[in-house]
């Protein structure tokens, strides 16, 4: 895999409504600029993020996915973030088997007050995925995901 010059990664960010989405709003309120590569999809809880959303994001052209949750113990729905963590672990294994680098799918925690952390996490994922280069998906008849060689 080689990084392509001028490559601007497309990244999907699944943000829970209560902490991380509010953290993103906080970053906005603080006018904390960050690269525009992450498109945010709001879900009520990180526990709603279905692994198939992530696989589908890669299939539909995303080069990276970031799932942001409430900090452990702070979940608005008590333990949805724990479910997200479990599912992320499972996703990592699946992605590895599919030849997709684990670093393309990150899970992190951002509270409603952590505007700075939000923009930092966004900058980091953009840099990580930029370094990995584009994810080329070659859909075969089973619609499986293959990474670039």
């Amino acid at each position: 895999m080689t990084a392509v010059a001028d490559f601007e990664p497309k990244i999907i960010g699944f943000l829970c409504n209560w902490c991380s989405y509010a953290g993103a709003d906080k970053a906005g309120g603080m006018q904390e600029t960050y690269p525009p590569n992450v498109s945010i999809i709001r879900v009520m809880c990180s526990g709603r993020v279905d692994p198939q959303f992530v696989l589908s994001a890669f299939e539909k052209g995303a080069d990276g996915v970031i799932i942001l949750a409430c900090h452990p113990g702070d979940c608005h729905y008590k333990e949805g973030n724990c479910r997200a963590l479990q599912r992320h672990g499972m996703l990592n294994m699946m992605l590895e088997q599919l030849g997709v680098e684990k670093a393309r799918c990150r899970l992190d925690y951002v509270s409603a007050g952590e505007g700075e952390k939000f923009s930092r996490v966004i900058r980091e994922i953009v840099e990580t995925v930029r370094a990995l280069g584009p994810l080329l998906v070659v859909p075969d008849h089973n619609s499986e995901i293959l990474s670039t060689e």
Partner: protein
Amino acid sequence: MKVGIYFCNCGSNIAEKISSAAVVEAAASFPEHPSVKIVDFICSEDGKLQFEESLKLEQPDRVVVAACSPRDHEATFRRCLTNAGMNPYLMQMVNIREQIAWVTEDPAAATEKAIAAIRGAVCRVRLQEPLEKKQLEVCPDALVIGAGPAGMKAALSLADAGRSVVLVERTPFIGGLPVRFEDLFPAMECAPCMLEPLMGDLLHGGHAEKIELMTMAELVEVTGFYGNFIAKIRRKPRHVSLHECIGCGECVEACPATTRNEFNSNASERKAIDFAFTGVLPNVPFLMEDVCIRANGEECRACKDACPMGEDVVNLDEVETIVERTIGSIIIATGAGLYDASRVIGMGMGTLPDVYDALQFERLLSSTGPSGGEIVTSEGIAPSSVAIVHCVGSLDEDHKPYCSGICCQYAFKFNHLITAKLPEVSITHYHRELVVPGKEAHALLRHATGHKNTSLKRYSNIKDLAVTHDNSGRLQVVDATGDVTSVDMVILCPAVIPAEGVDKLSALLDVSRDSFGFFQELHGRLDAAQSTLKGIYLAGACQEPMDIRSAMLEGMASVGHTLAGLQPGRMIEIEPATAEVDETRCAGCRLCVSVCPYHAITFDSEHNASHINAVLCRGCGTCVTACPAGAITGHHFTNEQIMAEMEGVLK
């Protein structure tokens, strides 16, 4: 399908970075070829009016509002849709201000990102469905568990508001723990005197008829859910009528059987039929069946015969009953207890005489206690030297890691009371930390430190302290430095823990507890008076160690929730953005039941399918994701809607 996009400039906030002209141009190639209306401030009064008028005129099937965060104004714009005669769930907001315009340096990049996000919203909104709020009739009445400070305050305030209250108390009396104390910190008020008006109101006040007090009772089963609970309560027989007894005590005099009195820490005797302690309210004795000589098959009706109020007041044949009540909400106010100090090695609790825990010492201080309020050792003499050990089991990883919050204050209260009664006594406080928060507590600390014979010694680990006795049998405290202090009495301040029986109660209510066994708040700061289950509220020390002031406030907070949530004649609205099971696709694996944090999902074995209670569901969607059969729909956040948004963004 007609989709209308409303693009808000937000003055220059959005317009400065995102070109509305470019959005208009791009929208022409979006699915459904939506029209774009540019508004300057859509959330302003003019803006909303303009928006509503436009909706009425254009009659779009779906609406996208590209503006600020939905956390700011989703509710506002949903109302606009309702005002315009549309279903409010047919709108999707795009956060182009906080999450694009304000955070993207380059206007061209911001515009491109906004166009992708709006395209995603258009793709999503096409799949959004009209949702209707369901309504449910509710019972406005409440069940309060525990008649201590928090429970009494809650019951009285609900009754004042015209609500009927069932007040269930496990012991034979009301007032909780503090009614057994002599004086209270921080102002050294007489405890029974302070609580008496409250207790009197509860029993005989203007709204007392609204309160159904059940003493010696406990909750045994609860079914239903918020707004419509059915509670079963076990009433143990008191054998004396609460309403007809005048509290003269003739029956007590006549009773031939005696036992130790648990309400005096077993430090005094009582009759089989007796008051819990002097001055107790309700001022009615109760009969301990296992102590009464009738338990041995002997015939006795001495108490019944002694009663001057008639044949029916003492009822020897009364049996346990189970009563059923319908209520809309439940307030848990079960209070606290003390950690068993004998589990802290080296403190002498339970092995050495004249070593007391705080509750035992409160009874020793009390004028209604076993010694009539005289501070005396087990030999009946006044102590000349007393040790008070703070933090027994608190701030201790081997026991309870938390600070119990109230102990320092009552320890200095003890100091005040002991020195008042025994001016020449010397007192040594052994403390790990000193915690005296708030505007009043310092006075007692200052009083103690200002007393000529009071000293404070700090220790770092309770293992370094040892309560032993010398060769003559006199108590002594040895500290880490080997310093020995001879004393006649040791008072231990053990960690404050949840009251006995909360494990049973939490199991039957399905309400979570924290790792310390206290009831878990819905949110420790935002919603500290709500449990994790809807309609079940927490008040007082059942959720953490707290003083009377906090317990009373918590009692009021729980009342606030009850009054705001359930009102007579008003139905409750059920949020439609919840999850629903398609019974025909459910395979019956019950994974959803195990992941739901709100116990909103039950398994219907008759239909072999899970069922989600829409009142209890909060719409987190974790069950939707967990369901291996894809049988659960998360309304307003369906798989299809989320995927469509994602695809639209990535296109």
